[in-house]
């Protein structure tokens, strides 16, 4: 080796040593995170698990509840949500900050209505961040899980043990089998090679072998889905499409079983049922109240998503996920209605964590705009339409979507039922 090569090698060696070390991994990397990111090994003050947060969800929100919209933020801090200002995150699951948005207004009939923030979503318990147990539902609606035990860990396996091996076209799920090399949640997630695995979507639980999370529920259904690379984004110009595959509703049924069995008295709407010809045709033609001029090629509405057949083919799911509005096609008959067709997983701007204002009054948009107390429209600013919200809050609840529906738009139940 010549002297120049020796010097070059030495310089390279020193550069490797001296340059700032930047970790190429994400924090969770599709699986278990760095231990010291959540546990304080020698000085934990939490009552269990060496967690340093007051509780499990508080530990999660140390990172996921910070200020500013970001890929992994799902809870807007109180400081950023003065009255009239909505939570900032538009992730598919929604921002838990809506749980702190209580609205008082004069409805179209009756006396002053108070819409409690806790009606807007899953009331995780995170004492450090002011999230408390649901005071109305002491157990999960349609189930028996103790609401006081609800935490991020109830649905997500913080250790991310569920993994996907095999190919994208023929995935195999398990809690062992190969090391997790990265996230499996995204359109641009790696395809696991032989001897490799990627994490399950959003570290969601999906195997009884993972054991139970907070609240004692074990999941035996995998939540198959793929998110686009960018998803916490405004939909003012283009929609964000998450591709949902097999298992969504059955997964939710782990805690809400009575909501899903056809024989249950609590069952109110079919789920995991094919849209079939009639509903598919309605969805694809529906563009707004009184407007049935839509086409299948452009019918997709991110406010009313659907499950793609019973897919577990991640090649297909990845092709459907988009963050630029490029995949606009509506459903085919084998696609299915799911819980998330109408609800958000974390929280939404509306009661019962619905994706649109399903309970307020007959119109979700009036005078061609989203309603709000500060709307310049004398119609849209009326209390019964604004329901205590500013235009910014109403708009954010629809992911900042431009008002693309009818000037007097009724409930988006009609996207599938067209009774308007």
């Amino acid at each position, binding site marked *: 080796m010549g002297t120049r090569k020796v010097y070059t090698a030495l310089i390279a060696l020193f550069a490797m040593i001296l340059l700032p070390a930047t970790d190429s991994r994400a924090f969770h990397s599709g699986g278990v995170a760095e231990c010291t990111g959540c546990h304080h090994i020698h000085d934990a003050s939490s009552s269990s698990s060496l967690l340093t947060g007051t509780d499990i969800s508080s530990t999660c929100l*140390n990172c996921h509840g910070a200020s500013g919209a970001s*890929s992994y933020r799902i809870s807007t801090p109180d400081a950023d949500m003065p009255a009239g200002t909505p939570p900032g995150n538009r992730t598919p699951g929604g921002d838990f900050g809506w749980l702190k948005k209580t609205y008082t207004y004069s409805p179209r009939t009756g006396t002053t209505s108070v819409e409690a923030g806790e009606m807007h979503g899953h009331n995780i318990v995170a004492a450090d961040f002011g999230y408390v147990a649901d005071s109305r539902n002491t157990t999960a609606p349609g189930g028996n899980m103790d609401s006081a035990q609800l935490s991020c860990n109830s649905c997500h396996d913080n250790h991310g043990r569920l993994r996907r091996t095999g190919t994208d076209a023929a995935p195999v799920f398990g809690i062992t089998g190969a090391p997790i090399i990265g996230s499996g949640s995204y359109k641009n997630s790696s395809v696991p090679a032989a001897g490799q695995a990627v994490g399950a979507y959003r570290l969601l639980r999906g195997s009884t072998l993972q054991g139970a999370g907070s609240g004692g529920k074990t999941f035996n259904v995998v939540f198959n889905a793929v998110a686009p690379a960018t998803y916490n984004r405004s939909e003012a110009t283009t929609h964000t499409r998450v591709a949902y595959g097999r298992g969504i509703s059955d997964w939710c049924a782990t805690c809400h079983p009575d909501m899903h069995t056809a024989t249950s008295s609590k069952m109110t709407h079919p789920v995991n049922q094919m849209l079939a010809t009639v509903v598919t045709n309605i969805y694809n033609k529906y563009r707004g109240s009184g407007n049935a001029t839509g086409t299948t090629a452009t019918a997709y509405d991110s406010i009313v998503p659907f499950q793609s057949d019973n897919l577990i083919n991640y090649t297909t799911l990845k092709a459907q996920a988009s963050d630029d509005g490029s995949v606009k096609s509506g459903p085919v008959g084998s696609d299915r209605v799911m819980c998330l067709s109408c609800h958000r997983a974390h929280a939404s701007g509306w009661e019962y964590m619905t994706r649109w204002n399903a309970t307020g009054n007959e119109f979700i948009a009036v005078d061609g705009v989203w309603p709000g107390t500060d709307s310049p429209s004398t119609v849209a600013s009326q209390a019964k339409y604004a329901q205590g919200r500013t235009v910014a809050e109403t708009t954010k609840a629809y992911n900042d979507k431009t008002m693309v529906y009818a000037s007097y738009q009724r409930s988006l139940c009609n996207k599938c039922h067209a009774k308007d």
Partner: protein
Amino acid sequence: MKENKIHKGNRTLAGKKHNCPLSVIMYAIVIFLFSITTLLIPAPHARADIGGAYYLYNLSDFSGSVPYNWAGLSVDRGQNEIYVVYKNDIEVFNEKGMKIYSFGDDEKISGVIYDVAVAGDGSIFLLLHEEDNYSVMRCNYRGEAEHNIKFRDFPAEYNRFFPARIFYRADKLYLADLMVSKKVVVTDTDGNFREGYDVNSLFGLDEFENKPGQEKDIAGFSVDHKGNMLFTVPTISRAFVLAPDRSVRSFGESGNIPGKFSVVAGIAADDAGNIYIADTLKSVVMIFNKDFKFIMELGYRGDKPENLIAPRSMVVNNGNLYVSQARKRGVSVYKIVNN
């Protein structure tokens, strides 16, 4: 404009007179006990000039400690006043930690107040977010809106710029986009572009852009008296110091023991160059000297007044350290003690 809510005046202990000798003795005992309760927090790893720190009080109004949750903090160094940004209000506290003023409801102020900076002449700069737009409103020393700063001559690569923090140092405004473009722009107080820093590129974070779940969001940002910019990047357990000449120094590594990073957040520096870093997970503030040598840490999770719960933003001023935290524990103030 909100009225000044605090009446300044002499205060006596519980408003009672203390004339008799016995009362004087009792008073002395109370003072002694009070001193005991504010014992120096142990500094097991003390180094360099800083010898310790002790808890003073929480920022308060006449009803007690103000129960902020992760409030934003800024400082008027000329007046030694602390500015708290919370729910579209700016609340001002004097050096004794008492609220003396508040503003923010001026009709000319449109949008959500995200951060505040105070210039040497008392001018106040409010960083405002309104939907997907930002603006900076210049206010007078009373917080009355004067005019929006018109930013000029921003290079094309700063088109995506969306700042979340604003700092004032030496007649310059530092605007930091910690989330979107990860760039810092330095302007004069009239908004004319002076310098721009591509933090992603300078710190070698480029490779993570547009990789979901791998974005290296910057949690902490501040500017020291020399114009050095300080950052924390929690997902790589690293703190960076970016000098005006664009040279970069960094330190920190993941871990739980004193001096290691778990989930780092706010960062600040005092005039001696000591660096303060809040660790939200460990619930401590770590102090390093200007050469990044660990000196001590303080706080620790707990319910005592001197403890911290998920600390986030910080400012250091005039020997005092101000720390905002979660669980409505407001802003704790510590006295930094030099050797």
